[in-house]
């Protein structure tokens, strides 16, 4: 019996691992096939995937819909920008070293307040707090540059071993930074996978599915939600930290409530009822948005129409729909 469970677990791990290895292989080889612009886009996609992955720990696994995750993305971005302004060293490792604790502390602080509520009140509370951060970033212009935002120059990577200046600096930076983000992306996925499959992750899902029953089991619900919020915010903040050197500039736009809406959109596009959904969603949304902006001046209209169609027709997202189709196919074959 025990052996059965082990082999079952091995098998359930083996197939996704094989698929993942194949995808990773393609991603590693990607820069030798495509032009710089495409690499840049994929990098943005990976960053969006990290943000959505963090967001989904809260929505998909804990059952809390945050409408204020722009705050953590923006706090990460602004933390880096302020480090550049006041502390000096243009090293990506230094950005991460300072940025991650800042984001974690802010997520812990704001999360501690937000998890006092659930459902719609949780959503509005996260929205209100993110708007506090937004209006501070907008109005305290002597610190944050106001609506002009703050510039972030290209950092050095890998402890200053790789630095980028001169004529080919941009292309080199994009390629190196792609690998840098890819490495962090892989670590983030593994980390999140371990979390959601740990007893802690199972407890979150139990709380999501039946709060009262979970409480009877002796779970400290609020604390679980708080820690989930903390991890979720930190992941999204990490995405902000990674995003800002690539974008070169951070403005209050990334703190505004509409950006939170985009994070929710991203996650739903991929599908929030499964682990891979937000990852697919991050990359799909980046491409969708880029091509919408490129093809029409009214890209927001297009995105809105896609979103409405999505929730009406494809509520489980891309991954949900694909896996359903796959299931049907395998049933037919059987």
């Amino acid at each position, binding site marked *: 019996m025990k052996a059965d469970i082990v082999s079952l677990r091995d098998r359930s791990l083996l197939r996704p691992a094989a698929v993942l290895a194949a995808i990773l292989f393609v991603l590693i080889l990607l820069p030798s096939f495509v032009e710089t612009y495409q690499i840049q886009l994929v990098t943005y996609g990976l960053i969006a995937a990290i943000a959505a992955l963090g967001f989904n720990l809260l929505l998909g696994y804990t059952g809390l819909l945050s409408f204020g995750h722009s705050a953590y993305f923006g706090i990460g971005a602004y933390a880096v920008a302020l480090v550049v302004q006041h502390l000096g060293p243009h090293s990506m490792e230094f950005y991460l070293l300072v940025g991650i604790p800042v984001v974690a502390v802010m997520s812990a602080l704001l999360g501690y307040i937000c998890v006092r509520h659930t459902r719609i009140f949780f959503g509005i509370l996260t929205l209100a707090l993110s708007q*506090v951060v937004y209006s501070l970033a907008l109005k305290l212009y002597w610190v944050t540059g106001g609506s002009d935002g703050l510039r972030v120059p290209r950092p050095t990577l890998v402890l200053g071993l790789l630095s980028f200046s001169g004529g080919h600096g941009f292309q080199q930076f994009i390629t190196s930074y792609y690998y840098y983000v890819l490495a962090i992306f892989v670590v983030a996925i593994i980390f999140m996978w371990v979390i959601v499959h740990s007893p802690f992750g199972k407890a979150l899902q139990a709380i999501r599915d039946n709060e009262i029953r979970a409480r009877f089991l002796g779970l400290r619900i609020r604390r679980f939600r708080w820690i989930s919020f903390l991890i979720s915010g930190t992941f999204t903040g990490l995405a902000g930290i990674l995003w800002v050197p690539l974008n070169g500039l951070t403005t209050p736009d990334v703190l505004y409530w509409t950006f939170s*809406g985009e994070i929710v959109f991203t996650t739903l596009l991929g599908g929030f009822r499964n682990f891979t959904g937000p990852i697919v969603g991050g990359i799909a949304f980046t491409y969708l948005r880029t091509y919408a902006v490129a093809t029409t001046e009214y890209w*927001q209209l297009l995105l809105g129409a896609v979103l409405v169609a999505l929730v009406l027709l494809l*509520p489980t997202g891309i991954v949900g729909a694909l896996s359903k189709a796959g299931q049907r196919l395998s049933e037919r074959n059987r």
Partner: protein
Amino acid sequence: MGEAVAILTVQILNSLLYCSVLFLIAAGLSLIFGVMRIVNLAHGSLYAVGAYVTAWLVGRGIALGVPLGWLFLLVPVGALSVALIGIVIEPLLLRPFYRRAEEYQLLVTFGLFQILEDLMRLIWGGTPLSADTLMDALPIIRIGGLLYPAYNLVVIGTGAVAAVALWAVIYHTKFGVLLRATSQDRRMASALGLNVGLVYVLAFAIGCFMAGLGGAIVVPTQAAVLGMGVDALVIAFVVVVIGGLGSLKGALVGAVIVSIVRTAGIQFFPELELAALYLIAALVLLVRPTGLFGTA
């Protein structure tokens, strides 16, 4: 009248003006949430549509040589057109979501918000649309040596009338009874033979009408600009959160509090004025999640 008194009077009038518009937006938002349990993220955009339609109609009216007095009738027409949009939206987009999870309801209204924002850009372009002919049609009055446009008093009056009218409809008509019954227990109301679908359409239309009226009445004092709905929505959120989601009295009190804080904030602490509003909303949510008057 001393100068200080005059300044104070103008400030109070300004905050009443702001309060009227806020109340119109927030009352609609609150009504829709109270009856349908939907947080309408597109509500600010509906307010903006009201402003755009009215400004556009006024512009057309002037071009066609419509007498000045008749132009004022275009304000309710602008508001009614938003109500019409609501009548179309509710059965088409919202009805499939009442039985689904909140995430989907929020997202569909977010999608609607994106669509409406860009539709306005598509139809009316990026340049602000002005309707200040209406404001100039009314005299400018003197308040102790300070000049004040009489049109602003019309806005304040409209807000007050709308508040009374809405209160009368909800608490003193048969339709109001049906509305409150549906809001309290949708299934029981339906079981008693009430046409819940119709009540929902009407409630949503009234909510849209209020938002549209807010936009229509305010547009002569400023102009219809892109993005006005995005900002209006979050402030309206603050109002209903303070007052209590789903409460009419709450929307009124919330609007008064927010407009006073805003007017004082712009005067005394301009950098923190917005942050203070959101902080107040967050604090109220923490201490009393149902707001000052909410029961939800």
